[in-house]
């Protein structure tokens, strides 16, 4: 009897060790996956935070600013990403609190289109003007001879005659 019970105990012990071993192995092999999801999360937080303006800085994004408020904002972005919110939803939250000012690039609609379009319009108009001016210069240069002051012409003629 006692020998049989002893065998049972060792089998159970072996099973227990095996289970523990498998669990450790699984946990260990999943490490890269866990790291990857964490990395993805931080990437995502950085991506969203880099489009938000650090409101207490000069021209810095929430991702780049070392200020305390920006740090708290990054935490908030992380929290909202973990809650499953997407980029638009998180941006909408910050816009509802701080206004469109909080976005580093103004959304491409309405009056803001002016900001996006005007530089290209200015380049086009300026380029056209430069083209026209350059064309006029190149056309006029060979056609026009510099006018000679008659007094100088007469003097040159006279001095040439004197040399003879």
């Amino acid at each position, binding site marked *: 009897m006692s020998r049989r019970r002893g065998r049972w105990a060792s089998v159970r012990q072996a099973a227990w060790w095996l289970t523990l071993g498998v669990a450790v192995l699984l946990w260990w092999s999943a490490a890269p996956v866990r790291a990857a999801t964490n990395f993805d999360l931080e990437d995502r937080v950085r991506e969203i935070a880099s489009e938000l303006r650090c*409101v*207490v800085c000069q021209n810095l994004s929430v991702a780049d600013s070392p200020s*305390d*408020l920006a740090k*708290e*904002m990054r*935490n*908030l972005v992380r929290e909202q990403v973990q809650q499953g919110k997407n980029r638009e939803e998180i941006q909408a939250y910050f*816009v*509802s*609190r*701080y*206004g469109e*000012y909080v976005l580093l690039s103004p959304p491409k609609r309405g009056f803001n289109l002016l900001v996006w379009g005007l530089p290209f319009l200015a380049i086009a108009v300026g380029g056209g003007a430069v083209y026209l001016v350059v064309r006029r210069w190149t056309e006029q240069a060979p056609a026009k001879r510099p006018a000679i002051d008659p007094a100088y012409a007469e003097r040159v003629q006279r001095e040439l005659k004197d040399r003879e």
Partner: protein
Amino acid sequence: MTWKKLLIPLASVPVILLLAYGFRTDPKAIPSPLVQKLAPDFRLKAFDGGEVSLADLKGKPLVLNFWASWCYPACYEEAPLLEATWKRYKDQGLMMVGVDIQDKEANAREFLQRFGFTFPNAPDPGSKVSIDYGVYGVPETYFIDRQGRIAYKHVGALTPALMEAQVQSLLKGT
């Protein structure tokens, strides 16, 4: 040929208009999208151990002030005015809550003691409430009416005249 002479003055008109508009606006004044909207709810643990929340203050006009002990001199300038206003109007139903942001507790308690604040003040862990209210810096003050709407937001130190006008208008509102 006359249109060419007009070209430069004509082209400068929009530039002048743009500058006239730009120079007349205050570049530091960024309008809060929250004004005239319902104030975001908050629940904070006060320095005295109690709890302050917007929900509990419903139906009462509220002056919500964001401050910090490191905010010198603006927060130090307006602190006596806050306490004086609280003392004068609390019997008429006015509520006042101070939110201390990004501060060290010891410094904050010293600030509270220095000005003898008797209205509830609470730290804001993680700046959650501050961000929820779109706070840029300290001090900022929100005047919230009985319906829980933000009637007015003031950035910078409060002046007695502004405080009086805003509080009166909050108390008058039904």
